């Protein structure tokens, strides 16, 4: 078996993937300017991207670390509220964030600043939740994260500065399609790099066997908390984008069903497969929208589809498989050189992208 580990193939794969992302971007922009994608579909695209970030961030905890977390919506809400409060404050203190023609440079600046703030605040919450919670494993961790998520929601509903049960409204809509698209691509790239880094491998080792990995000198607590905090960071960013897309926030949105929605995406896509969760996030966001004409039946169809997929494909749609464009291209070019067994193939892919 041939391993592609040299620098040159790595750069080539970066370039290929970048070109692919640019092509997708140009395609979407082209469809938008041609009027084929109307503002409703563009809104769905934004939701898809938010869900991709959420699912990809939860993949860190659930796929990579192998722990079930049911409180992801809590981190999302923390991010959403901190970003919303920041931009609202900026607007109230007289900064011109957007004109009827579009978002001003100050608006873009505040948008990015709010995302950073949202990520940092959510990561801080992730840290204080993670340190005690990650002492537990499996179902107990699931329950305790559920508890923390619900507590965050109840607190947001009951303190003054978040607008209480009425929620926040009048948040400037600063999330523009272009910026969010590139942010999503950047976050996915960072996550891919992280999963394949030495830290990512350490976290995978903990997933496979925590006692053995501890014996190999991997600090379990450190890496568990690291994965959990990173996952909260990106969930916070997703929340911030959500807040500035919807312009209104209510704590009820971020209840435990929202956490479950995100978990469903991750599991359906395949645990441990980032590309799987991207595909599942896209599919599961578009499916209910596409079924809008049967709105009475859509949740029934959704839940039935979920049961059927789980029964017939318990490992999720992608399983552990990661789709790799570089690999696909080299396969197309040299169909003969690709005869190793399936197991070897997936290993090869891991190295190709490294």
């Amino acid at each position, binding site marked *: 078996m041939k391993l592609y580990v040299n620098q040159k193939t790595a750069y080539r794969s970066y370039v290929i993937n970048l070109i692919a992302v640019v092509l997708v971007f140009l395609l979407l922009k082209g469809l938008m300017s041609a009027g084929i994608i109307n503002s409703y579909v563009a809104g769905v695209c934004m939701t898809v991207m938010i869900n991709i970030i959420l699912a990809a961030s939860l993949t860190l905890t*659930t796929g990579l670390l192998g722990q079930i977390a049911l409180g992801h919506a809590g981190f999302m809400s923390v991010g959403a509220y901190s970003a919303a409060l920041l931009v609202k404050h900026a607007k109230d203190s007289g900064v011109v964030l957007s004109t009827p023609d579009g978002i001003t440079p100050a608006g873009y600046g505040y948008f990015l600043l709010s995302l950073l703030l949202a990520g940092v605040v959510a990561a801080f919450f992730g840290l204080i939740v993670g340190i005690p919670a990650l002492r*537990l494993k499996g*179902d107990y961790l699931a*329950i*305790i994260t559920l*508890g923390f998520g*619900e507590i965050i929601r109840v607190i947001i509903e009951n303190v003054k500065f978040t607008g209480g049960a009425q929620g926040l409204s009048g948040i400037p809509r600063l999330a523009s399609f272009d910026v969010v698209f590139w942010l999503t691509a950047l976050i996915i790239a960072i996550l891919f790099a992280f999963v394949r880094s030495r830290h990512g491998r350490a976290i995978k080792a903990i997933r496979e066997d925590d006692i053995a990995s501890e014996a190999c000198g991997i600090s379990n607590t450190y890496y568990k908390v690291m994965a959990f905090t990173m996952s909260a960071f990106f969930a916070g960013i997703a929340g911030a984008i959500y807040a500035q897309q919807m312009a209104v926030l209510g704590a009820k949105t971020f209840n435990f069903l929202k956490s479950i929605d995100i*978990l469903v995406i991750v599991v359906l896509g395949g645990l441990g497969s980032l590309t799987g969760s991207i595909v599942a996030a896209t599919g599961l966001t578009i499916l209910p929208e596409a079924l809008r004409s049967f709105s009475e039946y859509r949740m029934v169809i959704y839940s039935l589809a*979920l*049961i059927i997929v789980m029964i017939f494909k318990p490992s999720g749609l992608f399983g552990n498989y990661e789709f790799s464009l570089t690999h696909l291209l080299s396969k197309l070019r040299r169909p003969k050189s690709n005869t190793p067994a399936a197991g070897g193939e997936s290993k090869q892919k891991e190295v190709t992208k490294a």
Partner: protein
Amino acid sequence: MDGFVIFINQIINGIQVGSIYALVALGYTMVYGIVKLINFAHGDFIMVGAYVSLFSVPLLVRMGVPAWLCIVLALAACALLGVVTERVAYKPLRNAPRITALITAIAVSLLLENLCMLLFSSSSKPFPTVFNKSIFNLGGVQFNSITLITIVLSVISMILLQLFVKKTKMGKAMRAVSEDGGASILMGINSNTTISITFAIGSGLAAIAAVMYCSAYPQVNPYMGSMLGLKAFIAAVLGGIGIIPGAMLGGFVIGLVESLTKAYISSQLADAVVFGILIIVLLVKPTGILGKNIGEKV
């Protein structure tokens, strides 16, 4: 003495809600004990039980039978639903990763909720009177017959369940399967039947809880099960999931904490306090109040 009377009333309320939580928590704990699955659809079994009794009460009254017999119909319907759910949705996943079964349970819960919404609309329906409501007065402390029936009925159900699990052959089989599924098969226990019976009993208890809950809060809607189920589930974890007395203890603790918080602190914060207690207990004693600490073998 007024403050004292209010306090006693809150305690009685707490015990009433707590016994409903305990009944539901028993279903969670028995299922978890035997298949290691958090049955997220259990809360929705309560909702189905409530709908079945809602529709059976007029029929029973027309036939001239007492309305409280709707418990029997609800019990049978829920037990059947539990067994069918297990056979169709959970059994194929018994050897799959645990999270897959968890997601399937969530999907079953969504399916039941949305089917009921489709069939009966999402608006709340009033629940008919099943038990006569008479009010007793005991030295200034007021409580009604529904409170009394709820507490008595749930205590009887718990005692019967304990006797069943401890004294009968089937109960012994249940304990064996939950201890070691593989070994119990080798001992000639039909583990599939045992698991089905566990689901039937757990769901049946949910049906009893449904009738009691609807008598106290006479409203039925497709979402009534989710929060009730979540609280009961917390009760099960608090007491030590998989342990039957633990579920009862957890149920009463959650019920009391909730009603005292509502009375003395804030009704909005009641959920947060309940979750806070859960977190503290899990951090101090990760397997719950009555849980045994099983060491990890390398």
